[in-house]
């Protein structure tokens, strides 16, 4: 039986917190293996600063900020809004959720942008969706919805299908002006038309050239927008905008029952859909207190690693195309096709499988599954070798990728980086080793680590992680073949036919898995009914992408291409 071992660390953390910083904490409790500390809004900033820098606690990563509207919870809570700050200590491996309760009128809490750089975007998102004001935030604008959107959609009194017509695109010049003013390059006379002669001051050397790398551009894969001010080809200021693929997943999930959420999770990180399914099911199983059988766990490991391979192949191929190396994409994609074939035989779909159910698999596996997977793994090695030969020692690739988009480990942690982007900076943090689940600790694999934190390292961390995933899959299959078949009663014929009713008890949980891009987490609040009350998806791509201003300012446009390609931007995850 596979056990979730986070409860021991939670206990340690609980004791430590009570011992060291008891003064600020109003309540401290552990539910569903997650530690919650409730803090007053005024003391939030001081409390978080203390636990970030405390030598024994060292919560160096702000994982997520989740807003919750408790309007429809029964029994009704005195304070309508909750803001939950989910923290992780990569050094000591413990987690903490810090809850703040805010009243219905003018909910406001001090901003923690100064403590964690990722808080900038996370707070903007919470403001956008809930209307919670973060006092002291440098730029509290909407993040996902368009500028003139009226209302806050994730509030429980906002009807799900209240649409607000077609907006105009925002020109983002105000943010750019603020940035350029800091650099002494005023652009007051400019309005953006896309033409080169848009201002009388165009010939003035002090006015930089403003280029909109908009959502319909090959670099940004159709979903991001960057308003840049360039000097020649060097970017001197950059304003990113996201939300072009905001699909209201979290609101739709609140309207679906627990099983119906699985297809929504497929479409979050659509490059590796199985991992999202498994991450969600793991979180719900944690709430329900279900532990899955070893056989199920090993199958889930195989799926997760196949998904990781798919995601890394999808990141590397288009990255190389953006750099101009057009051929490896086709080699890498062929392996994805082979994995699609396997998943199609299992689930019937090529890309969005919904292949996992809470507690079990929906259908038995076909006989040749193990052979098919072994064939794919065998085909993988020569393809990776070929791509490496084309690219690893290529002088042009070096020039385009080495020392481009460098980020230090400290900055990476401040931006909430996890996954290959963090490991490329030299910091070996992998949830599969740090907080193992499903038996990852019994498998033999290495954590791939880079040195510089530049594009070259991010690219090759992914390539070598593909090789490690292949190793894991081989071991898992070997173990699966050795396992005796589960006795029929344990699988439960009922579970495989139809959907067993799922209704987790009232409460909240945060659970995370190591997805291809980093830590994919689900903060789920249940009110005991058939539908999730609130689900916040912790998106690794959002945190990785939030560092774009730091990475790209000072770089050339050609470098921007390289940087964005290496960060693995998946729109479904960033915008949800």
């Amino acid at each position: 039986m596979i056990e979730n071992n986070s409860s021991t660390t939670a206990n340690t953390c609980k004791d430590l917190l009570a011992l060291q910083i008891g003064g600020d904490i109003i309540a401290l409790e552990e539910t569903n293996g997650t530690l919650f500390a409730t803090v007053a809004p005024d003391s939030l900033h001081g409390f978080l600063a203390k636990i970030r820098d405390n030598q024994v606690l060292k919560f160096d990563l702000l994982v997520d900020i989740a807003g919750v509207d408790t309007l429809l919870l029964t029994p009704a809570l005195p304070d309508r809004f909750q803001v939950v700050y989910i923290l992780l200590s990569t050094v000591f491996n413990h987690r903490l959720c810090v809850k703040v309760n805010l009243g219905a009128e003018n909910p406001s809490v001090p901003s923690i942008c100064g403590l964690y750089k990722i808080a900038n975007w996370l707070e903007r998102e919470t403001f956008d969706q809930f209307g919670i004001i973060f006092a002291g935030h440098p730029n509290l604008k909407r993040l996902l919805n368009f500028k003139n959107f009226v209302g806050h959609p994730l509030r429980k009194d906002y009807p799900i299908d209240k649409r607000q017509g077609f907006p105009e695109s925002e020109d983002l010049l105000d943010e750019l002006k603020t940035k350029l003013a800091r650099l002494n390059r005023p652009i007051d006379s400019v309005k953006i038309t896309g033409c080169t002669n848009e201002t009388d001051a165009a010939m003035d050397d002090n006015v930089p050239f403003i280029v909109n790398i908009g959502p319909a551009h090959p670099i940004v894969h159709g979903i991001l927008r960057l308003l840049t001010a360039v000097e020649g080809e060097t970017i001197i200021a950059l304003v990113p905008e996201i939300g072009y693929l905001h699909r209201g997943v979290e609101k739709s999930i609140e309207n679906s029952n627990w099983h119906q959420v699985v297809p929504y999770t497929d479409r979050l990180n659509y490059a590796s859909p199985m991992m999202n399914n498994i991450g969600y099911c793991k979180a719900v199983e944690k709430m329900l207190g279900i532990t899955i059988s070893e056989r199920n766990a090993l199958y889930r490991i195989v799926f997760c690693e196949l998904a990781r391979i798919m995601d890394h192949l999808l990141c590397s191929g288009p990255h190389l195309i953006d750099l101009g190396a057009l051929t490896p994409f086709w080699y890498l994609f062929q392996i994805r096709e082979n994995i699609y074939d396997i998943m199609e035989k299992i689930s019937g779909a090529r890309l969005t499988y919904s292949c996992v159910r809470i507690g079990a698999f929906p259908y038995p596996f076909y006989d040749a599954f193990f052979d098919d997977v072994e064939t794919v793994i065998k085909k993988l090695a020569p393809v990776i070798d070929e791509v490496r030969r084309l690219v690893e020692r290529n002088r042009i690739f070096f020039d385009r990728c080495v020392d481009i988009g460098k980020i230090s480990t400290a900055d990476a942690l401040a931006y909430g980086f996890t996954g290959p982007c963090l490991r490329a900076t030299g910091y070996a943090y992998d949830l599969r080793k740090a907080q193992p689940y499903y038996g990852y600790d019994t498998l033999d694999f290495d954590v791939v680590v880079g040195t510089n934190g530049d594009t070259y390292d991010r690219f090759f961390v992914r390539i070598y992680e593909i090789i490690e995933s292949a190793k894991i899959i081989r071991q898992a299959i070997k173990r699966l073949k050795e396992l005796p078949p589960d006795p029929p009663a344990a699988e439960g014929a009922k579970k495989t036919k139809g959907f067993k009713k799922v209704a987790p008890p009232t409460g909240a949980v945060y659970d995370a898995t190591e997805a291809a891009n980093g830590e994919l987490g689900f903060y789920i609040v249940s009110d005991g009914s058939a539908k999730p009350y609130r689900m916040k998806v912790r998106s690794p791509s959002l945190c990785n992408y939030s560092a774009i201003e730091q990475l790209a300012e000072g770089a050339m446009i050609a470098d921007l291409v390289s940087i964005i390609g290496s960060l693995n931007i998946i729109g479904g995850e960033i915008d949800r």
Partner: protein
Amino acid sequence: MGIETAFGQSWITARIDDVVNWGRANSPWPYVFGTACCAIEFMSTAASHFDISRFGAENIRWTPRQADMLIVAGTISYKQAPVLKRIYEQMCEPKWVIAVGACACSGGFYNNYCTVQGISEIVPVDIFVPGCPPRAEAIFDAVIKLQKKISKESVLDRK
């Protein structure tokens, strides 16, 4: 539109139609407005297993002025809608739109405050491809149907 309409309704125009439609059908240069999961499936369509370049759609143009067909693959949110409309307006005639996937056809299962319930609210669509995401063969089917549709057009349609 141009000199090809000079003969009006006559058998010469019909022959011109044949030639022009043959050219247009056999070399549809796509502009891939790919936002979400369907864009990944489109990438599969362009990959070596399926290969959309067999249909002459190899030249994926990144500027709307040179493209013939606008392939909208993925969910379009209200924020993205003005961008899509502008891209469509910048394309040169003749142009066709293929809505790939359930989200582009009708909003998919995102029936909420931020998703356009089908891009036909914004741009006129020629071919709808159902699926979530549709298989690569379904996208080919759409291209083939578009080719058939093109071959039935006339140069006099788009004066």
